[in-house]
Structure formats: structure tokens, C-alpha cells
């Protein structure tokens, strides 16, 4: 009996999600866009071979049937580079976003639950990290740390972008703190960690999901920016490296060569647009009040 109602509720929730998807076409498009890029980046390299050799006979060709996005200044197929160049970009952005979301949730809820001096200290640190202009700081750090490693880059990006979410989490937790179910858990003697994990986090799901997506877009901005300025010597297969390369070789100045720089710009714009639209969809999807049950 219990099994049955549980299954029923779950089924009802999926129906509700499907309806939401149909009611929010922009969000659905965003979700489709993100899925298509993930597929392109993860599955694409298995199908499309990497074109890394120099071909002097086909430098800067406009799009043709064989080279749908043209070729670059070394005659390499732009499409093949797009397929292979998204993986490290996405990985760094997602890892940075995961780290910053984790820090934000931990510090935000701690600041709200602890209050007093600890809370004040956390909020002061939050304000400082929020105020310091991130991109110049990243540029300076890139000069000091030689950020060749993707993991190190992701960690540094993640260490900078948590404050906005931390503030939002703190505000949410402050309002949740006085609700009956949290007070009940406190009265039952559950520890702070348990209350955060079991009572507060489930209610922050939509916040966390949206912030994760937005943090990913922020990490994209900074990451590609650093690569574009040539401050981060990343592996050669990277949309940012393609832009930097095209820029340095003057690809913007000719109508046949311009595709080799427009293609990675378009890919990044497509990815960011999809992510932001998807964030709007998450807002509807995770909102328990909109899902019934």
C-alpha cells in the first residue's frame, strides 16, 4: 500500500515536470541546448577525429561541405576543433561552480545558524570577497601562480565566486530557522550538521541548482577571458584558445577567415544562453509548491 502511493506520487511529479517543461518553452530550449552541448563535447570527439596537423593547401577557407565551419590559419578544420575544444572548458567551469556552491551553502548556512561573532566574521569575509574585482585578481594570480593546471584554475575560480550565493543561502536559512520543522529537529537534539543536511538543504534545492548553473556561466566568463588575454597557458584544445589564436592571427579582418573566430564565440554564447535559460526552468522544476505533492 505504502509502496503504491509512493510510486504514484513520483509518477505525478514527473507528469507535473513534463507540464512545466511545456509551459516554459524558453527553459525547455535551454535544457535542450545544454544537453546538445554536453553530447557534442562528450560524444563528439569519439566520432569526429581531431584535426591538429597543419595543411598549407587549405588555410582560412570559408565554410564548405567538407569543412562546415571553415578552416583556421593553419588549415585545420574549425568544426573538429569546436568538437574537441569544449571538454576542458566545461570541466573547469563545472568544477569551479561545484566548489563555489559547496562553499556558499556551507558558509551561508553556518553564518545563519551560528549567528553572533562567527556569523559576523563570515559575512565580513563574504563582503570582502564580493567587493574585490575578480578579473584583475585572477589576472594577478595567473601571473604569480602559472595556472597551467586545469584543476588549479577551477579551484581558484571556485574560491572567488561563492559570496552572492552565500548571502542568499544565509537569508533563506534565517527565514527557515524559525519554522516549526527546524525547531522540532532542534528540540529533538539533532546536531547542526544533521539539521543542515536533512532539514535545510532540501528546502534550498532550487536556490542551489540555479546558483550552480549561474556560477558555471561566471566561471566561463573568467576562464575564457584569462585564456583570451593569454594569461593562462591551457591545452591547445579549448574554445578560448581558438579565440585567442584567431585574434592574434588577425582572423577578424577577412570574411573567409572570420569563421574560425566566430565559431568559438558562437559556441560560448550558445552554451551561456542555454545555461541561463535552463536556470529559469530549474526555478519552476524544483519549486515544491508548483509540483503539488
Amino acid at each position: 500500500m505504502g509502496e503504491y502511493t509512493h510510486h504514484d506520487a513520483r509518477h505525478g511529479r514527473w507528469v507535473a515536470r513534463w507540464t512545466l517543461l511545456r509551459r516554459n518553452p524558453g527553459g525547455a530550449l535551454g535544457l535542450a541546448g545544454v544537453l546538445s552541448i554536453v553530447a557534442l563535447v562528450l560524444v563528439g570527439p569519439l566520432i569526429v577525429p581531431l584535426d591538429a596537423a597543419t595543411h598549407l593547401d587549405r588555410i582560412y577557407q570559408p565554410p564548405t561541405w567538407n569543412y562546415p565551419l571553415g578552416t583556421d590559419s593553419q588549415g585545420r578544420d574549425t568544426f573538429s576543433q569546436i568538437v574537441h575544444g569544449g571538454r576542458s572548458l566545461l570541466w573547469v567551469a563545472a568544477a569551479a561552480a561545484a566548489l563555489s556552491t559547496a562553499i556558499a551553502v556551507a558558509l551561508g548556512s553556518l553564518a545563519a545558524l551560528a549567528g553572533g561573532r562567527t556569523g559576523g566574521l563570515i559575512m565580513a569575509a563574504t563582503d570582502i570577497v564580493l567587493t574585490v574585482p575578480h578579473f584583475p585578481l585572477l589576472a594577478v594570480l595567473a601571473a604569480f601562480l602559472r595556472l597551467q593546471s586545469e584543476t588549479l584554475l577551477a579551484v581558484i575560480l571556485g574560491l572567488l565566486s561563492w559570496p552572492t550565493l552565500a548571502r542568499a543561502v544565509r537569508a533563506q536559512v534565517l527565514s527557515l530557522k524559525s519554522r516549526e520543522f527546524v525547531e522540532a529537529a532542534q528540540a529533538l537534539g539533532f546536531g547542526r550538521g544533521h539539521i543542515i543536511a536533512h532539514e535545510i538543504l532540501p528546502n534550498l534545492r532550487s536556490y542551489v541548482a540555479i546558483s550552480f548553473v549561474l556560477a558555471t556561466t561566471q566561471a566561463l566568463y573568467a576562464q575564457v577571458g584569462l585564456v583570451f588575454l593569454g594569461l593562462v597557458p591551457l591545452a591547445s584544445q579549448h574554445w578560448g584558445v581558438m579565440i585567442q589564436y584567431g585574434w592574434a592571427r588577425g582572423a577578424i579582418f577577412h570574411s573567409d577567415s572570420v569563421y574560425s573566430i566566430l565559431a568559438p564565440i558562437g559556441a560560448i554564447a550558445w552554451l551561456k544562453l542555454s545555461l541561463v535559460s535552463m536556470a529559469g526552468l530549474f526555478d519552476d522544476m524544483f519549486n515544491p509548491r508548483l509540483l503539488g505533492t
Partner: protein
Amino acid sequence: MLLIPAMSQTRTAARRVTARAWNSYLLRLVGRALLTILAVSTFTFFLVRLMPGNPVDVFIHDQITTYGQTYEQALEQARGLFALDLRAPLSVQYLQYLGNLMRGDFGQSILSPGTPVIAIIGRFLPWTLFSVGLALMLSFALGVALGMLMAYRRGTWLDHALTVFATVTTVIPNYLLGILLLVFLGVQTRIIDIAAIRGSLSPGVQPEVSLAFLLDALYHAALPIVTYVLATLGGWMLTMKASTLAVLGEDYVGFARARGLPDRRIAVAYLGRNALLPLFTQLTIAVGFVVGGSALIEFVFNYQGIGFVLYDATVRRDYPVMQGVFLVITVAVVLANLLADLLYGWIDPRIDLREGRG
């Protein structure tokens, strides 16, 4: 009759409480600004002086191995460049460093010997303040107007078109928007002569108080300004639309309508102040983002501002310049934030009750 003095007494008491709250709000804001600057300065001191492989040690090492100097000579030279007495204990060096910063002494450029960093900053910072400041004001004003328009025309094709425009321009990173502007306005359609528009002034034009100078400065700043405006406009539009809609739903607006007040008066007196509030909180974040991103935009347009210097010094590893420029950018952003917060406190009638926002 007896009530009146009592009322005026409570009113002065209320005013005193308000004044105290405003003062503490002000104090807290200023304290936070100073704390931020101190934290960032300490952090840069750590980077320049304490980190393994820090530039001071590297410089001394290079002077000895490459130029055959003695340790003493190298130490003396490093002392001039970094404005630090390297023989003193680290704690003394730290205090010395903070004292130097307060006096505006950031040391000297490694790559252009004899040039104080502060002179470089003084030469390039005004261009960034000019272009970024003008762009932010333009985009704020435009965004507020368009956002209100969208709220009043909600659901129409105009609202949908503007929403799509706002989303797309906000989402594309501003430096990529800059490249797209160069490609489509400069190269493909030749509307703009990109060779002539580079830099911050045309050759031969000197800074002076004249119309010719102003026009030339505006001409060269046009592309960066358009990029900043395009990249930030959408955010203002969408926020303004949402907050106007929220205020339009309030009872007091309905009541003002019912009293027969004209729409224009409602828009200015009732909507303006209340709908603008959420935008001011955003302004602080926007300032940091735009000033911080100026390195990228000025690189794209070869605009000779402070961001360009930061890029240049970083690529060429001119550490004193890099550090000075970074600190100045941080201070500019902190001060702009302080200003935005003060404006917010001034414009928000509730601020004295809440003693600032959490």
C-alpha cells in the same frame, strides 16, 4: 493642546534615533570599505614578498646570476623598485609597505626604469574612469527607461523583443561582444574605421579644455562605451521591469490611481523611488564587474586605460606596476561601492529603521 509638545518631543527623539542609525550605517559602510582595502593590501604583500618564488626574491636572484651584481647591490636595486627595506624584519617591511601605499608610493616599474608606478596610474586611470563612468550612467538611465516601458507594455511584442535582446546581450561575455562589434561594424560593413579609432586619443591631440579634445576623446571611447552599455543594459532592463511590476501591484499605487492622479505623476513620485531600490544593490556588483572587466575590453579595442596597463604589466611580469594597478582598481571599486551604498541609504526611506541592509 497638551498633546502638541509631547508630539514634537517624540519627533525630535525619533530624529535623534534616525541620526544615530544613519551614522552607524555610515560608519559600518566606511569600516567595511577600509577593511576590504586592508585585506587586499595584505594579500598583495603576501604575494609580492612572502610566497615561494616571489618577485622580490626572483629579481634579486636574477640580478646576481644574470648581471653579476653582488647581493648588496641587488638588494639596493630591489629596494628602490619595490619601495621596501629588504634588510628590515618582515613585520617592519609590512608596516612600511602599508605606509607607502597610503602615500601613493607603489615603487617603480621594472621594465621602464625610473618611472614611478603612481605616474603610470595617473596617466592611464582617467581614461578608464571616463569611459566606464559614462557607460555605466548611460546604461543605467537607458535600462531604467526601457525596463519601465517593458513593464507598462508587458505581454506585447515590444516587451518580448526587448526581453530577448536583454537576455542575449547580457549572456554573451562583454569582450566577445566587443569582438563581434569589431567584426560586424569595423570589418564586414566598414561603418567604423578601426585603424583610426584605436587608442584613447588621435595622434597630435593633447588633453586640454576644448570641444575638439572632448569630441576626439568621445570618438575613441565610443566602442568601449557601446560595449559596456550593451553588456550591462539588459540586466537593468530586466530588474527594472520586475521591480516596476512589483510596485505597480502595491496598494498605494492602486489607491493613487483611484484618487485620479495622472499616470506621469504616479510614475515619478510613486514608482520611481521604490522601483529603483533593487537596482542600487545591483549597481555595486555592476561597478566591480565592469571596472574589473576593463582589462579585457581595453585589450580588445586597444584603449589605453588602466585595464590595458594591467594586462600589459601582467603579460610582461612587471610586478610593481601590476600590484599598484590592481590595488588602485580595487580602491576604485570599493569607493564606487561605498558611493552606491550611500545613495541607497539616502534613497531608501526605511534604511534608518533597519540600520542598513544585512
